[in-house]
């Protein structure tokens, strides 16, 4: 059971390994806080839709499962979007249209199809939670790097020295792509190292 949860964090991390859900990842991670918020919203949708889909899986006719999954996902996304607008207005404005785009975030439909529709509610919850948290962590890392180099702050706290000139490119699309590409490279290197050590034992 634990494996269901842990795999989403590293081995099958949605961002660094599966390279899914790129759209929001690159778009909103201009600041670490936004990465965290988007991650949380996605986690919410992942877990709630995963549990619902798992619960009704025996009653859903095979032919229409994709439309039904999609409607369920879209409903939870709408709920998340309105919740953010009501309670975290500034963050909602910053995340903008990328919250509704969670609907087409390949991760959610992917997990629903690959796991939630085939397993019980408890395991589906763990799978979704793992993927969601893995996703959030990846976003926080990317967001922190871009915020650090692009604005000199991390989560709003000034970290870089006073004379540091912001690398504006970090805040722009080009920087997002390049940073993520490099982070994927770093992740792969670290992964290789862990694998080697595990073998040597």
């Amino acid at each position, binding site marked *: 059971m634990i494996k269901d949860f842990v795999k989403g964090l590293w081995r099958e991390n949605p961002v660094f390994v599966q390279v899914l859900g790129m759209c929001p990842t690159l778009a909103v991670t201009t600041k670490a806080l936004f990465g965290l918020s988007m991650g949380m919203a996605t986690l919410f949708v992942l877990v709630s839709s995963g549990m619902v889909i798992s619960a009704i899986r*025996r009653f859903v006719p095979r032919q229409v499962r994709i439309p*039904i999954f999609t409607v369920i996902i879209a409903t939870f996304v709408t709920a998340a979007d309105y919740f953010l607008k009501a309670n975290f207005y500034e963050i909602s404005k910053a995340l903008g249209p990328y919250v509704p785009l969670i609907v087409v975030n390949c991760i959610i439909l992917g997990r629903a199809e690959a796991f939630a529709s085939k397993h019980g509610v408890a395991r589906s919850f763990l799978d979704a939670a793992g993927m969601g948290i893995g996703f959030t962590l990846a976003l926080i890392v990317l967001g922190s790097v871009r915020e650090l180099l692009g604005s000199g702050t991390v989560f709003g706290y000034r970290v870089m020295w006073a004379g540091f000139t912001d690398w504006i490119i970090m*805040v722009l699309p080009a920087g997002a792509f390049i940073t993520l590409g490099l982070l994927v490279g770093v992740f792969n290197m670290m992964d290789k190292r862990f694998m080697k050590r595990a073998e040597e034992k």
Partner: protein
Amino acid sequence: MTDKKSSVVKIILSLTLVGMVSGSLLVSVYNYAMPKIKTNVRAGTEKAIKNIFPETEEIKNTKEEGVFRAVGENGKFLGYAILAEGNGYQGIIKLIVGVNEDMSEMTGMEVLESQETPGLGAEIAGEAFRKQFEGLSLKHAMEYLKNQKPQEPYQIEAITGATISSRAVVNLLNERLDSVREKLKLKKI
């Protein structure tokens, strides 16, 4: 998953059921969230108006939507606060400007929402650009100049490298102010 070929009835039933549950869930979310969202939007507008007219004690609506009266101590009329919006380079730009009683002069400008490029177009929300609107004459249509200091009291200098965003601001303001002038039945320029 029911692998056997399900009857058409089952398919329609499941779709309808999901649709209905989803619909009712969304209606309740909507009812819960809408009042809060309206409050948030209003709070944002009020904050911006207070930035433009620091002595504001009360903000009153007028007959016109998006036009407010800023009222200070002892009911002193400070000016009109006007909401304006239009298409920028990357999306919609929402502004609020302060003008005096006969709309001959602008008191200030605040950006409420913008999706312009950070570091370039987004600088329309920056101090330097906005300061140009304080005391700007409205006796003539606003104009922008590129790489040149303003020559006339109704001109501003566009942001270097962000001409489109600057132009968008000027255009949307001109349009909005003209329309408000007509609605308030003030003299046209």
